């Protein structure tokens, strides 16, 4: 067991983390490259950067949506995201691990806060899954990954909470820790290939929407030629 734990926390962690970083970097670069290329080809290059920035901030900090439509969904979703982002990065135990590995760390959350946020993330995640199953609209729209993602995402939180807060037998502790690490690594590997890529490209959305409406000039002729429709009546 200890060997497996060491392997998971060592080489496997490095590999999966590397895959995630590389995968996300690829997506981010492709996305920005696509937008820059489209902007270059656009006939009209006036973009309201201010509005796009304002809308981006509005959706990165979507507090207002709590007071408009679907308040329960919004509250659950926002608290889930807050937990997902803050706990893995700022948990004291994680920061210590980074310190050991790369020589420096950063600010960490007080233990009580980390525990509260962990529980919030677990409850919100469970709420999101239940909401998705209970709503006929969401059932209609959902793909498999839409149910599986919140489920997968709360596994490291549950196991992490067990390891740090519960008096369990050493065997259970080790098993929890292994599941904690492996599920986290599975998440790392899957992120760049699924909808969770929004963690890096979402801030680009409003800009992409604006640029996408800036069509290239003179495409009529080109499309007619490609589709062999030259000279055809309207």
């Amino acid at each position, binding site marked *: 067991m200890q060997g497996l734990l060491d392997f998971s926390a060592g080489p496997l962690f490095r590999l999966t983390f590397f895959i995630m970083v590389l995968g996300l970097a690829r997506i981010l670069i492709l996305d920005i490259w696509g937008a820059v290329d489209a902007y270059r080809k656009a006939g009209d290059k006036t973009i309201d950067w201010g509005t796009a920035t304002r809308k981006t901030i509005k*959706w990165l900090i979507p507090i207002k949506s709590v007071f408009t439509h679907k308040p329960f969904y919004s509250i659950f979703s926002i608290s889930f995201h807050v937990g997902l982002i803050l706990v893995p990065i700022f948990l004291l135990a994680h920061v210590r691990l980074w310190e050991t590995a790369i020589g420096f760390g950063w600010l960490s959350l007080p233990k009580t806060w980390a525990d509260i946020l962990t529980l919030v993330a677990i409850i919100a995640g469970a709420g999101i899954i239940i909401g998705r199953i209970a709503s006929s609209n969401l059932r209609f729209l959902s793909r498999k990954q839409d149910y599986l993602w919140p489920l997968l995402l709360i596994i490291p939180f549950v196991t992490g909470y067990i390891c740090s807060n519960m008096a369990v037998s050493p065997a259970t502790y080790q098993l929890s820790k292994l599941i904690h690490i492996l599920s986290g690594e599975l998440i790392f590997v899957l992120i760049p290939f699924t909808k969770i890529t*929004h963690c890096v490209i979402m801030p680009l959305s409003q800009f992409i*929407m604006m640029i996408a409406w800036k069509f290239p000039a003179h495409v*009529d002729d080109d*499309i007619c030629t490609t589709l062999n429709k030259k000279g055809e*009546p309207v």
Partner: protein
Amino acid sequence: MRTEAITPEEHGRAFAPTKKPEVIEQQKLDVRYHVEDFNVADRPKRFLEAFAAILKHSNYRFALEHFIRMTTKCAKCAVECPIYQATNDPHDIPCHRSELLLSVYRRHFTLAGSLKGKLFGTGHLTDDMIEEMADSFWNCTACRRCTNECPVGIDHALITHLGRYILSEIGIAPRALVVSVREQLEGATGNTSAIPLPALLDTLEFLEEDMKEEKGIDIKFPLDVEGCDYLFIPAVSDFLMEAETLMGVAAVMKATGASWTIGTQYFDGINYGLFYSDRMLERIIRKLVSEAERLKAKNILIGECGHASRSAKYFVPTHCGGKDAIPVINIMEYTRDMLRNGKLKLNPNTITETVTYHDPCNIARQGWVVDQPREIIRAFCTNFVEMTPNRENNICCGGGGGTVSIDEIRPYRTSVGGKAKADQIRATGAKYVIAPCANCKKQIRELLEDQKIDCELIGLHDLIYNAVIFDESTKSIDTKSQKG
């Protein structure tokens, strides 16, 4: 805003097919909209060819790539969609509508999608999927409310716009729109309402006489004056159906001593290309700009019409010169500016009845023309009430996206598309609902009639006509531009 779903009877009436069963059988496309005749064989292949050609020459690909990575299926857009709110049918959720096209893109135009498809032999485009897309994309009124409220930023409106464009390339587009655009671009009259020039001239002369009688002064529609500040282009249907709006505009221009003209070679602001084909959009924009160039106009002034304003404002620069393109403004921007600089004076007590204002989606959604009309209305109406929601978050009249021109779907437009708008208007208890858009005017008029709402639809400049105060100095002004 949550509204009650429509009743089963209304549903039946709204969704009744408009075509004969034998026609439906022949075309195998039970859409409620008229479509051009087409050969049903081989449609998926032609759809994909058109999709590929559009991707190759346009800017859509990068946006689709972004959207397929982002879509999270939260259904928040459902709350914003007036169509879904009326039908409660999950097929009307904007995210589902977008997925129809995104799934085709993912399967046929991405490496992972085609590998997966080939491996499992699934997911390829079928004729049934084309039918579903045709139905779904034309159920949407292109109001873009969903786009403003998508948490991850999926532009459902852009996807529907693209979907309609691809469908039109394989012959699936509402006949009413195609016929109008054909007349506009290739017909003898060169406009969507097929108004011959002599008839237009007669109409304008008649309106001038009317105004002379009513106001006691000469108010002209100057024609073909070169070098004017403003080339005025309304939706051409205004010449037939909204004469009062045009008289209001002429009165404002007279009172402010404007240098303006109407071109006799091209006088139609309508651009249905915005609703179904980027190629047509481009051709119509070029036609518009060539008239402005012929007359050496300094600005293009679009009349009371949402989509005409949006298509000109945002696509004249795209196709005709980028930042050096001729500026485009909406008539309400002009009137508000004149009000502010004191050139236009309105009698503040002209309208004392309750008045409400409908924001046309095409000029309000991006926050372009929202304050101007309100400022104008408050200058001459004593009792103005807002609808809720309004401005950028307004609700569509139900005839947006070109659907208002399809007469045979009126039951759908007034019981499904316009359900939420009808409730909004009813809630204000207003005597007048002002809608400064040719499409919204037609739709809301039908909506008020079918939903039996005691309220009158009117254009903004129709009301302004009664409020304009002509100075003695203005009356005697006979500028170069006024010498029609």
